[in-house]
């Protein structure tokens, strides 16, 4: 006979405000098998846990139900406490009466009745719980970092400096990401390239970092401590080992007028190119879509001029498999496209701004390239249409951000600051020019941030206009800005030479597809979800996978670097152990009943089901049955629901347990 102990938590007032916890404890105390039932203000606190431990010993409890918050929050806490009191941790269950009850209902009577039922269900369940041994698995002490922007670079360097090997995978031909594109950075106005490129070189020279650029993640298998990752290395058409980076091929390439994506299509590049002069690795790549050799079979000039013979037209995409124990996802952000609606996306564009039609309406990143000393204009602010210096420039904030109508409700966080920076850069470069900014709110929380914004107004003479712009249109060589100043309550019209739109930060294209490969969750915008918004901000709910940078949500550089180092610290924590305990939620086969149909094997996505021969003493084969390898099983239970003879059971979710719960209703 089980002696179940039930502990109802008030969670301060979070539960007790809508659930009569004392009544729940009383009602549940009457259930058969319940030997002890009580309520307490904070079960997760130290005294709360001590209460639990003491009750287990004093009352000789055999099973425990803690009715409190979501098990996703504190299941580990209470199981650890139960274990400390000498019980197997898997004899403890949590009943969720906070997220699923007290927080979502207002009527106290209804919520109390529901809470009693929820706890009752868990009481019936826990009766059927069995002692489960913990399973230990080895840890591969190598890390994979996906994305070679500032987040990925920082995480990779930190982990590698700690003595572990790192695989860094970058989709583009060079690492550097968006930070390499920026001109200066707020709030100190130091040159982005100057602080970024040394870090890029560190990556290239680090003995423990293996760099795969122009590569993508193809497949991720395994689990925490034991991932197998298949990486697709796209054909670069240039051998990285032999290329010296002399650049002769790029000089000789006859195709010269391909808009360079790195320069926001303002500058041109040849068909064999490095995206920017400081690229790491400094190995060119052939853009096969535009290369004459690939299009017509003729030319081949780059191969002829290449001294070391590194150009290889025959190169093909290849796959490499790497074993790693932890993964840091740092895929960063992309910018909102103003004028076109990406296919299949709910995000809409802005027809009223004529971006794409009016050449001098540009986005913030394009302005960065104009302002960058290494950019297409050598750092001069010039109009794309006629190369003239704009004397009146208008910045418009919140393009795409905070625009529910367009499908994005969030604030992109960095635009207020970078627009303030843009007005300063403009003022430094065009002394007789005037910058205007249309804005809704200036959001400048951060060290020295508000002071920076104020400086752009008070010292750099930017005119900030609180109000938005309805429409832009071309009039002669000017752009008419139809705005309003809501402080004055009038319409404002400015004839501008150039308009810069501060576009929203979005996750990288294909972020959802990568998440599906990794088995991590993401929100409706495709930003990756952390395990807990406050307490586990750099971990995914999927064990062994960590997040760094803007792939999780809009972030500026200091925050990104901070999070990348935090993710690296988490990886190092994991790598500090040789073996890892994992939840023993795995499937087991009842060999006596198994008929060897192997339906379970067919549905197992992990290949955990093996065929096992059962022989008598003479060695004659009696039958072949299924066997689940507990090291490989992930514990989804699909095999159990599939098994026609009900001979596979998922520990922790047995039919007995589930039926007991249903019957409790």
């Amino acid at each position: 006979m089980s002696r179940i102990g039930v502990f109802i938590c008030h969670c301060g007032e979070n539960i007790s405000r809508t659930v009569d916890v004392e009544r729940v404890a009383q009602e549940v105390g009457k259930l058969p098998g319940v030997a002890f039932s009580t309520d307490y203000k904070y079960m997760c606190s130290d005294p709360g846990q001590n209460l639990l431990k003491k009750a287990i010993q004093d009352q000789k409890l055999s099973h425990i139900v803690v009715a409190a918050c979501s098990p996703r929050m504190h299941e580990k806490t209470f199981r650890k406490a139960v274990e400390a009191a000498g019980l197997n941790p898997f004899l403890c269950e949590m009943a969720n009466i906070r997220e699923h009850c007290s927080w979502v209902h207002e009527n106290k009577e209804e919520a109390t009745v529901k809470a009693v039922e929820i706890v009752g269900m868990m009481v019936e369940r826990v009766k059927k719980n069995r002692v489960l041994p913990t399973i230990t698995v080895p840890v591969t002490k190598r890390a994979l970092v996906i994305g070679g922007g500032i987040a990925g670079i920082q995480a990779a360097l930190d982990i590698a400096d700690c003595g572990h090997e790192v695989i860094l995978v970058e989709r583009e031909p060079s690492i550097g990401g968006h930070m390499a594109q920026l001109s200066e950075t707020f709030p100190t106005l130091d040159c982005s390239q100057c602080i970024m490129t040394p870090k890029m070189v560190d990556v290239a020279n680090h003995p423990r970092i293996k760099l795969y650029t122009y590569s993508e993640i193809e497949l991720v298998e395994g689990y925490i401590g034991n991932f197998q990752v298949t990486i697709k290395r796209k054909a670069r058409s240039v051998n990285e080992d032999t290329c010296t980076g002399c650049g002769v091929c790029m000089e000789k390439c006859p195709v010269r007028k391909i808009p360079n994506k790195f320069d926001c299509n303002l500058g041109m590049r040849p068909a064999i190119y490095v995206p920017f002069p400081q690229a790491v690795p400094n190995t060119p790549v052939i853009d096969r879509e535009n290369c004459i050799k690939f299009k017509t079979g003729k030319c081949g000039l780059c191969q002829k001029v290449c001294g070391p013979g590194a150009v290889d037209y025959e190169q093909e995409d290849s796959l490499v498999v790497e074993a790693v124990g932890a993964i840091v996802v740092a895929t960063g952000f992309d910018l909102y496209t103003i004028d076109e609606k990406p296919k299949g996306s709910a995000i809409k564009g802005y027809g009223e701004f004529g971006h794409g039609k009016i050449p001098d309406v540009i986005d913030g990143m394009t302005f960065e390239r104009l302002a960058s000393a290494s950019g297409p204009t050598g750092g001069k602010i010039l109009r794309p249409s006629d190369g003239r210096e704009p004397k009146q420039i208008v910045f418009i904030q919140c393009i795409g951000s905070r625009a529910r109508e367009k499908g994005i409700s969030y604030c992109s966080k960095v635009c207020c600051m970078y627009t303030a920076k843009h007005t300063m850069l403009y003022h430094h470069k065009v002394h007789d020019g005037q910058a205007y900014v249309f804005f809704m709110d200036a959001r400048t929380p951060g060290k020295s941030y508000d002071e920076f914004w104020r400086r752009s107004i008070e010292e750099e003479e930017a005119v900030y206009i609180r109000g938005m712009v309805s429409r832009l249109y071309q009039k002669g060589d000017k752009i008419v800005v139809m705005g309003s100043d809501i402080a004055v309550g009038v319409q404002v019209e400015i004839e501008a030479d150039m308009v810069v739109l501060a576009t929203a930060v979005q996750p990288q294209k294909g972020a959802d597809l990568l998440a599906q490969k990794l088995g991590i969750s993401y929100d409706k915008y495709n930003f990756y979800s952390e395990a807990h918004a406050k307490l586990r901000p750099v971990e995914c709910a999927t064990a062994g996978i960590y997040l760094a940078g803007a792939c999780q949500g809009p972030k500026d550089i200091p925050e990104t670097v901070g999070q990348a180092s935090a993710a690296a610290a988490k990886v190092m924590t994991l790598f500090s152990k040789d073996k890892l305990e994992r939840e023993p939620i795995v499937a087991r086969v009842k060999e006596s009943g198994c008929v060897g149909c192997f339906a379970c094997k067919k549905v197992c996505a992990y290949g955990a089901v093996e065929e096992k021969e059962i022989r008598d003493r003479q060695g004659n084969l009696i039958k072949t049955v299924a066997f689940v390898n507990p090291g490989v099983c992930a514990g989804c239970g699909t095999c159990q629901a599939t098994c026609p003879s009900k001979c596979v059971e998922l520990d922790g979710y047995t039919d007995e347990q589930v039926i007991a719960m249903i019957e409790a209703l």
Partner: protein
Amino acid sequence: MSKPNIMEYSYYPGCSLHASAGEYDLSTRELFKVLGIGLTEVPDWFCCGATPAHNVDELLSLSLCAKNLELADKVEGDLAVACAACFSRLKTTQHVLAESDVKRKQVEKAIDAPLKLEGKVKHLLEILATDLGLERLAAAVNKPLSGLKVACYYGCLLTRPTDVTNLDCVEAPTIMERVIEAAGATTVPWSHRMECCGANFTLSRPGVVIQLTNAILDSAKAAGADCIMVGCPLCHGNLDIRQKEIEGVYNVEYALPVFYLTQLVGLATGLGPDKLGLDAMIVNPTPLLKEKQLL
């Protein structure tokens, strides 16, 4: 014996087409005859309530439109609408009533009949550009409007509100341009194609209308247009009828004939001025059409 029509529509001309915009009605019927598109006028249709009704009494506006949709349901074919205001009201009614149960019940009670919201409401532009198709339209052209520079004026209600009329892209529509280019004309890009002319105030506050309409005419002239094309009798009223007055107030000369889209397309299919009601236009189009050798 004439050939059987390739398409059939019920037709809601709207009040203006039976009065001040008679030439729009005439040219529509004549053009569609040429194109082999049948139009059957909805018998005993009512005024849709236009802007004044929804301005002060949404329920009345919805009920009037619902009544018209019910009447139109009795005639075969999708409903062809000529006036942008009627088009916007009928579409908005379908949209609002499909979304709100409360309003739906109220309107059903007001018209004392079950709602008929399934029928498709189409502006003439849609019929020409999509149903008939630009290729077939171009094939019917035997007097291309070569050299005629047209400023296509959308006004407010053809594409707005978002997700309701679904005629074309809300902020950067091209449907008028596509139609008239199929008829051989040249279109000019200009800034005020979707600015409001203030039609609602033509009676009560003409001063407002004059100011707004002037900006539109000015923009079209500056863009080098020979004429303006519209798909709405209310826009036409302001741009054409008040043009002389505006020229006087601002001391400018525009002399921009304002055509209905069916007049211009009709011209391209070879219809004569009498079939297009060109003589009803206040700003005389004859000199322009003669200059371009289209008459």
